[in-house]
């Protein structure tokens, strides 16, 4: 089997952040659905949570190339 173990590692590492980002935005959508006035306040928290969860996936793809 040819290929690079780096990319297999990245693929496995991307499962966690994928699920995490989905959970964050599911909570955001539910919160806005219950109380539409809270959209502005919740949006800041959603963006922050998204960036924190996405960081691990991005570290994965960057290190898959670099290492």
């Amino acid at each position, binding site marked *: 089997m040819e290929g690079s173990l780096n990319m297999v590692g990245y693929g496995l590492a991307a499962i966690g952040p994928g699920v995490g980002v989905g959970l964050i935005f599911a909570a955001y959508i539910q919160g806005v659905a219950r109380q539409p006035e809270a959209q502005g306040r919740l949006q800041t928290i959603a963006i922050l949570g998204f960036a924190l969860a996405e960081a691990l996936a991005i570290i994965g793809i960057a290190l898959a*190339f670099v290492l």
Partner: protein
Amino acid sequence: MIFATYAMPRLSEPGAEETFAPPGPSDFELAPLGPSSEYELFGQVFPLGATKPMIQVVLAAAVVFVFFWAAARRRSMVPSRLQYVGETSYGFVRNSLGRDIIGSQDFMRFVPYLFALFFFILINNWFATIPFIQFPTMSRSGMVYGLAILSWLVYNAVGVKKHGLGGYLKLQTVPGGMKGPILLLLVPLEFMSNILVRPFTLALRLFANMFAGHLLLILFALGGEYLLLEGSTLVKPVGVIAWIMFILIAFLEILIQFLQAYVFVLLNAMYISGALSEEH
């Protein structure tokens, strides 16, 4: 699209005219302009002369300074368009990043730092989209680690000045006044996570986002060109699709560049606010 991939010839088979060399980290090392001699310092070899990211960093600082100086030069009660843009941008950082996160008591001390940091990182990130520049300076990790070290110094110095060294360490490592033997496990974990690891995650998030985005764009461009020129007739449309994806992802990258600058400064503000907070 799936059918096309089954029909695609293996790109490294010996029948191909030239094999496709996928882009990698070596595409990020740009040759320096100026004299090609080198000098050695601390065991590392440095070239004399400026590389493109070095020029971009200075250019970004100059652009930010000149824009806001020009916007604030003639202050009138009814603002002109330039003044309005300058005021809105400043207000965005001051209110949503300064006042809402650090609190209305002592946020004004930090607004110059957050404001300059936000627009410096934003312009540097947007250099990846501006034609003829098209290289994100934050994809060179050295640039980012400098900013991360500065941010680490700022939030630690602020905390130590307010609480004293022992009080500040206690604030960061002992959450919510817990007592007992669990502290033995908790204190090293919180120390590592709050004081040691934070600058690394901060830097790595920005660096990896810019690196991966730029690499993706290079891959779509080079891969599309290779498929278009070297592929068989069945494969050529995939090259065109790769170029369309290149354009679409370039637009996505504009959003990601803004978002990463925003998140960097947001986390900076949250760390400062955490260092300033009172005991629970």
